[in-house]
């Protein structure tokens, strides 16, 4: 692909106008492009024309770089003894100019530094080259240059350092992760907070039979809008609710709290629960359940669901026995609700006493 897109074209023109280096990714396509692009050709022609004109005229006003190099590179002893008279005269002229012209003095200083740098590089190479034997000489040309060799050695050490640093960081991370996993609830895998969705819940358990406010909250929960649902539930005046509505509201709040208390730091990794929040909600739910003892005599779907989510909250708080008690309440009644099958499976996985054997769920329902 040789064509440049408008952005690349603009980038190229900026580089040409400002005499910057051609960007690396355009280098290959530059040549075919410039043959066909009049704008780029114009920029290049103009700058070439200016450059030629300026170089020619500036040379007359100042010393050229060649003259300055020969001046900087010459020593007085060369001037006095070895150079011919014409060269000596030229050196004196250059010297007089440099003395007068601040620009040329600056240029001379720059060239002097550049020569010193060059000498340092060349002398390093010479030290290696001329001090080594004949056999090494033969290898000297194809082998990488001295500076590159030094870089390779440095690169080896830095690579080694990098490996050590990465290994230590990984170990620290692993240890931290282990410690973190240790801190997680024992039954985290059974609670499955991320898989718990309220979308599948049937209408009768999600507020269709309740009051308008609860209906709305149920809708929010079904749409997984947990935070708005919690905010709505916080505004409920519990004094005006019937026991069934109170249970319904408590159930919604428990469901939403369990969902909201689960968070993960990085994607699916490092999950955690806001346990104090769960604890408070569980207590509240237990109070609601204890207010109506007749629930056990006339159990309904909300009651069953509330027990199921209380069992989940207990698992989060690592209280297996209480979880089993709640699950036993759910399984022990003939009321059908959306979480009954899950409750049976959970009780079996937890090994709760009296939990139905595998394959007998239908009989329990």
């Amino acid at each position, binding site marked *: 692909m040789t064509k440049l897109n408008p952005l690349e074209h603009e980038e190229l023109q900026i580089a040409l106008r400002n005499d910057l280096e051609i960007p690396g990714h355009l280098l290959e396509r530059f040549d075919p492009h410039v043959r066909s692009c009049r704008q780029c050709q114009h920029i290049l022609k103009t700058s*070439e024309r200016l450059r030629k004109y300026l170089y020619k005229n500036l040379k007359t006003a100042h010393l050229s770089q060649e003259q300055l190099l020969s001046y900087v590179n010459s020593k007085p002893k060369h001037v006095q003894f070895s150079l011919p008279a014409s060269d000596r005269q030229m050196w004196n002229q250059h010297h007089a100019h440099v003395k007068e012209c601040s620009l040329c003095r600056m240029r001379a200083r720059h060239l002097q530094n550049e020569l010193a740098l060059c000498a340092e590089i060349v*002398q390093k190479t010479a030290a290696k080259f*001329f001090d080594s034997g004949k056999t090494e000489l033969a290898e000297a040309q194809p082998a990488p240059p001295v500076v590159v060799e030094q870089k390779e050695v440095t690169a080896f050490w830095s690579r080694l350092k990098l490996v050590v640093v990465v290994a230590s960081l990984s170990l620290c991370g692993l240890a931290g992760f282990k410690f973190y996993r240790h801190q997680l609830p024992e039954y985290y895998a059974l609670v499955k907070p991320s898989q718990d969705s309220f979308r599948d819940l049937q209408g009768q358990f999600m507020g269709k039979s309740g009051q308008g406010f609860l209906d709305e909250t149920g809708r929010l929960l079904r749409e997984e809008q947990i935070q708005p649902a919690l905010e709505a539930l916080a505004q409920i005046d519990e004094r005006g609710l019937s026991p069934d509505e109170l249970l319904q509201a408590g159930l919604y709040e428990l469901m939403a709290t369990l969902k909201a208390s689960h968070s993960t730091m990085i994607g699916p990794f490092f999950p955690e629960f806001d346990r104090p929040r769960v604890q408070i909600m569980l207590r509240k739910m237990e109070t609601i359940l204890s207010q109506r003892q007749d629930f056990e005599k006339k159990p309904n779907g909300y009651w069953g669901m509330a027990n199921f989510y209380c069992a989940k909250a207990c698992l989060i708080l690592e209280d297996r026995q209480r979880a089993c008690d709640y699950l036993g309440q759910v399984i022990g009644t003939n009321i059908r609700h959306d979480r009954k099958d899950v409750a049976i499976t959970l009780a079996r996985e937890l090994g709760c006493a009296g939990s139905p054997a595998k394959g007998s769920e239908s009989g329990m329902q």
Partner: protein
Amino acid sequence: MAKKAWHSIRKRMGGESESGGVHKQLCDKTLLLQAQNGNEQTRERLCEFIFLAAHNYARTRHLPRPHRAKDFAQEVVIEFLSQLDEIKDLGHWLYPVLVGRRAAMYRNSDSKFLDFLDETELEKIKAKSEQIDIAEIDYAAHLDFSLFLTQLSKVQNFIVSLYYLDGLRSSDIAVMLNIKSSTVRMHLMRAKKKLYNFLNPPGEAYNDETEPSRA
């Protein structure tokens, strides 16, 4: 007297002393003499060394794209072979060659992009710049180059000279003048604009798109 002056300049430049540094002998002078007397083995050995030294220098100091360190080193070796008989001190010859060649590459970095032009077009550009000189003679009062230089500020004058005469990059000039690289580019563009207007008839305005602020 000249020696004293030289020492004072060296001192001001922060350069090396006479005894060492830049003029430190690179190799035994007999090697150079042997090569000059036609000893093929020594000549090859010196060529190897110069190739390696030039390559190292180019790798360390960088070259403008698309020049390669290998090509640079080869050119220096060719120059060495062509001037071998005249060389008296290898270091004394090699350092300015390396520095000068690299600077010339930067100075002519625009020319390498003019491959799209054929010979006649290149001649046209050359002729156009020659015409400017003739015009200068004809209208010396108006088109005198020194007059143009007076139109530039001192900083612009310095920057233009360092850029076009020595082929220094804006980053190098910025270090020398202790200003920002972007400021150097801005001054350079303003100077170019002035020069363009100076060289062209009043009707032809300078293309403002070339302002560096767009960069």
